[in-house]
């Protein structure tokens, strides 16, 4: 049984996956205070069971949102001594589209996180953060996918093929630079 945690934007997504199927799914949309919601939701979904492994979306996205999901996931994995793996928010999008041009992006209002993937879901180059105007120019030249319905079954299946990590080393992927880094 695998616990999947995604808090990278305004939604909190907690899923239980077992024997190739999503067996429980709780999506709480447009959460204002993510911190209130994450642990109570996980408690409800697990209903006293302990998963064998954890998958967490480690970004990019809202800094605080990603940090909450990652802190929760790595602490759970460390405490239970269970396997932990990460998947990025943009990998989730690429995995959920059938289109062959897998340039995927999503907005955080100030700009766009963008990633280019091969047909077998390997990242080409690096993730980038584009301003709204840069993104507008870019999307005129290339077909960018910004709307996908996430296929959690496929996402978790793919994540489980990845290497497990030491919980201490599970960390957020921020991509967007902060003022002091510029």
């Amino acid at each position: 049984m695998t616990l999947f945690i995604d808090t990278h934007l305004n939604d909190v997504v907690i899923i239980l996956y077992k024997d190739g199927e999503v067996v429980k799914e709780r999506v709480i949309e447009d959460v204002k205070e993510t911190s209130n919601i994450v642990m109570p939701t996980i408690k409800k979904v697990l209903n006293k069971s302990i998963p064998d492994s954890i998958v967490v979306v480690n970004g990019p996205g809202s800094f605080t949102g990603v940090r909450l999901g990652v802190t929760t996931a790595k602490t759970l994995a460390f405490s239970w001594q269970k396997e932990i793996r990460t998947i990025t928010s943009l990998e989730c999008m690429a995995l959920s589209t059938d289109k062959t041009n897998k340039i995927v992006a999503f907005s955080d209002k100030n700009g766009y996180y963008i990633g280019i993937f091969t047909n077998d879901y390997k990242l080409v180059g690096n993730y980038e953060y584009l301003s709204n105007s840069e993104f507008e120019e870019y999307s005129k030249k290339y077909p960018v996918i910004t709307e996908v319905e996430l296929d959690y079954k496929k996402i978790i299946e793919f994540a489980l093929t990845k290497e497990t990590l030491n919980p201490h080393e599970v960390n957020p992927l921020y991509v967007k630079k902060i003022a002091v880094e510029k």
Partner: protein
Amino acid sequence: MKDVNILSIETSCDETSIAIVKNGTEVVALTILTQMDTHANFGGVVPEIASRMHTENITMVLEETLNKAKMKVSDVDAIAVTYTPGLLGSLLVGVEFAKVLSYVYDKPLIKVNHLIGHIYANKIGDNLKFPCLALIISGGHTELVKMTGDYEFEMLGETQDDAIGEAFDKVARVIGLPYPGGPNIEKLARDGEDTYKLPHAVNDDSYNFSYSGLKSSVINLVNNEKQRGNEINKANLACSFQTTAVEELTRKLELALKKTDIKNVIIAGGVSANKYLRGKIKEVCDKYEANLTLPEFIYCTDNAAMIGAAAYPLYLKGEFADLDLNAESTSRIC
């Protein structure tokens, strides 16, 4: 009575700290991972970087604390965490971490106010005697509080503008001292004399404080001297500033000692690490035959041991938090 061990977590600013405290008075193990060197590169704490480093390090800080204590999380009786006041993003990491431990190990969760933690730093070694006057002095607070028992507070006075630590940091920046400003002013002041005339806040009968006037006068003085092309004697200015800032505290403390006839005084908060300040407060206490209690040096700055000490009375009262606990950036003691 059975011993009570509390695992406590503090991430309100730029220290990731975890402790195990027995019966609210004995530190079984304490780990403090400071980010000071990182933030020094930016001239002050960068909140986003502080939050990032808490997430990176927190499970390792736990592991180290457990190893030192030769204990497991399942051995403790409760999980305590600082939930206010502080940098919101930093507090959130500690709060989330505490909630996970409380859930996994099925231990009660205790939410602790960071400032009350600073007061209870004096409980380590069991030195907190009631009634007492508590002077809370830090980068965000300057408060004089009367305590009549555990968690029984009465606010006597507080700063009307800047906190004393904030004034130290801003003055340090103006005279070109690196971060952290407060300790560097103290160091430099030792080589100086009180030669600059700086204004005292209005001498009224309240217990309130004010530091913005003093801070502004130092900034104006530096700017005026620069314009005139005069050199500033930095050591003397640091000394004059520190002398005036501390006089403001001792004057109000003396007033309270005189009026309330309380014979126990404690100082708490990051600025209480200032040795000049400690000396001056001791002089006032001696004059009124009051007993001054200071936290051990290591418990003056942010640390999780004080959070464990402050959590103990709440544990005894059964005041526990739920898994929907949230962090709050600002708050008051009373």
